[in-house]
């Protein structure tokens, strides 16, 4: 690998150019057909063979390119590869006799042209008859007859058109074939006149296509107009909004003047107003302090009380009784109140406090709970009836699935005898009375 593997080619080229290694490439204009200026040392083409001319020019050009831009990849010979390119070789060796004709053919514009009208066709038809050889004449006669027949039948019967068209197609094909061969032989443009019905005429189709295009263009123009309209409307709306804003700002300017902040005016009044405010502030401050002091004192007092005093005090100032608990309904859903924002903030400047909604009774039935679930069949007495994977576990006795019809579980006299003999079934278990010794201990 060469050292320059990581650097881009362009970078290298630029570097070399700057260092003067590569001369400035002057690209000469290319004229088709004109022999290019070959640099010195290039192999001039030998004008020996007409057919070789093209190939050699190609080769010479390749050489020139090689000289101007020496290839970089040194580990395989690209120069040789170019010459060995099978395509170039093929081009050089190709022997098309009439290259000019082929080129002319390439350049011929292919578009629909009116091949023939009915009258022309008939005329040509006559002409063709005269000039052809016998074999072709016969064919033509046949076709002519068919044509005539068709013309007669056309007037009479319409639905037979399909057959006619099929015939015509065949004939057209034949005629085209014939016309082609004609061209070859005579060199004059002789087109076999065949009637083309309206539906198959290229010219008509083309006209329609052109019309369709025009319509499409009109549509586009109309759409553009509409879009323009919408755009202008939007611009209008924006402009109006801007103007409103400007209006507002102007009003604002006016408002500034409204509010008079001149301090000299009504000094005495101002002072009075301030005094009122100040007193209010002081009052508030005082109250806050007193409340705080009071709360602290009370806490201290209660802490220092003895038991009896405490009881008395509690009796006198009972704690606010919790709201009486409501009895919940059958299968009532439990909603948690939430742990935050339950109390009013202590601070006057607190920003978070309780909301009215927390004062509601949270054990009241809501929505689904209002329906009495006991009347439902036991299958439906479940939370989220209809969902999979939910079972309502009631209690052990309810969930008991023992089959009481079994002989060994059947409750009859035999069973009861057995039960009586089992431990713990006879007398109720007595609770321990407690020893005397222990009792004395307590009393002491």
């Amino acid at each position: 690998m060469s050292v320059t593997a990581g650097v881009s080619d362009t970078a290298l080229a630029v570097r070399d150019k700057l260092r003067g290694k590569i001369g400035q490439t002057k690209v000469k204009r290319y004229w088709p057909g004109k022999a290019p200026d070959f640099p010195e040392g290039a192999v001039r083409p030998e004008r020996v063979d007409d057919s070789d001319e093209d190939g050699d020019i190609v080769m010479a050009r390749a050489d020139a390119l090689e000289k101007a831009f020496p290839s970089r990849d040194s580990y395989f010979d690209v120069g040789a590869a170019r010459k060995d390119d099978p395509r170039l070789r093929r081009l050089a060796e190709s022997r098309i006799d009439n290259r000019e004709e082929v080129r002319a053919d390439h350049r011929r514009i292919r578009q629909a042209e009116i091949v023939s009208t009915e009258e022309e066709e008939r005329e040509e038809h006559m002409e063709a008859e005269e000039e052809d050889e016998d074999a072709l004449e016969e064919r033509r006669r046949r076709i002519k007859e068919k044509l005539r027949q068709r013309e007669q039948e056309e007037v009479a019967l319409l639905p037979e058109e399909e057959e006619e068209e099929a015939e015509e197609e065949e004939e057209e094909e034949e005629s085209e074939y014939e016309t082609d061969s004609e061209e070859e032989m005579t060199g004059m443009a002789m087109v076999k006149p065949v009637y083309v019905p309206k539906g198959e005429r290229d010219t008509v189709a083309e006209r329609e296509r052109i019309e369709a295009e025009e319509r499409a263009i009109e549509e586009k123009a109309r759409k553009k107009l509409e879009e323009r309209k919408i755009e202008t409307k939007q611009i209008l709306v924006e402009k109006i909004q801007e103007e409103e804003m400007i209006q507002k700002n102007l009003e604002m300017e006016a408002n500034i003047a409204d509010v008079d902040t001149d301090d000299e005016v009504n000094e005495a009044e101002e002072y009075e107003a301030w005094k009122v405010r100040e007193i209010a502030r002081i009052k508030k401050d005082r109250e806050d302090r007193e409340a705080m002091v009071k709360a602290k004192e009370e806490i201290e007092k209660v802490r220092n009380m003895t038991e009896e005093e405490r009881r008395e005090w509690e009796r006198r100032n009972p704690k606010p009784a919790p709201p009486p608990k409501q009895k919940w309904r059958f299968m009532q859903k439990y909603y948690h109140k939430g742990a935050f924002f339950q109390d009013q903030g202590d601070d006057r400047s607190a920003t978070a406090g309780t909301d009215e909604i927390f004062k509601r009774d949270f054990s009241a039935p809501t929505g689904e709970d209002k329906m009495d679930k006991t009347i439902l069949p036991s299958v439906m007495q479940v939370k989220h009836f209809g969902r999979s994977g939910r079972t309502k576990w009631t209690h052990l006795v309810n969930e008991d699935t023992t089959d009481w019809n079994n002989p060994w579980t059947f409750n009859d006299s035999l069973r009861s005898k057995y039960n009586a003999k089992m431990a713990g079934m006879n007398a109720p278990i007595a609770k321990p009375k407690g020893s005397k010794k222990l009792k004395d201990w307590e009393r002491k």
Partner: protein
Amino acid sequence: MANPITDPSVKSITGTNPENLEEKILLDKAMETTYWKEQCFDLTTETLVDKAMELDHIGGAFGGNREPTPFMCLLMKMLQIQPEEDIVVEFIKNEHYKYVTVLGAFYLRLTGTDVDVYRYLEPLCNDYRKLRLIASDGSFVSTHVDEVVEELLESGYCCDVALPRIEKRWTLENLGLLEPREKSSVLEGYECKEERKRKWSKMMDN
């Protein structure tokens, strides 16, 4: 600091970038205003004073778009450049320009310690100069310096800016960091009144 505009040598206040003291949305909006872009771009403390002297109203965000006022923009600029305390105190103590006073007071409330806040803002409670306040709907309202200062001290929210928490005066007094409020004439008058009231009620009880 996260915001490249803020001076990297700036101290952090309450543990965060001082710019975070204002709400992000308000901050972004203020930086978008023409006032900011035209005039606030390379302000230093001195030039900021000139701008502050030109103020003629205070307020937070107004209008349907919640556009910040120039007052807000200057406040944010101050937060960015962080002038020293002496300068801020100078702002507050100046006699001629009330809006400069308010600006300084606001800045101190945001960035100063509890003791400083009480010490410098309380004298302003005696200042009853009128101010123009722009309400949230864009209309102008008349207010006073002492009202604004009261809001700064008592409530936690002023001019659409959430103020950092400071201790109650009571707590600071108990800690011995502050002296109780000096008795102004009004206070004395009030106390006299209270005394009389109490005596009267006592007499009535008896």
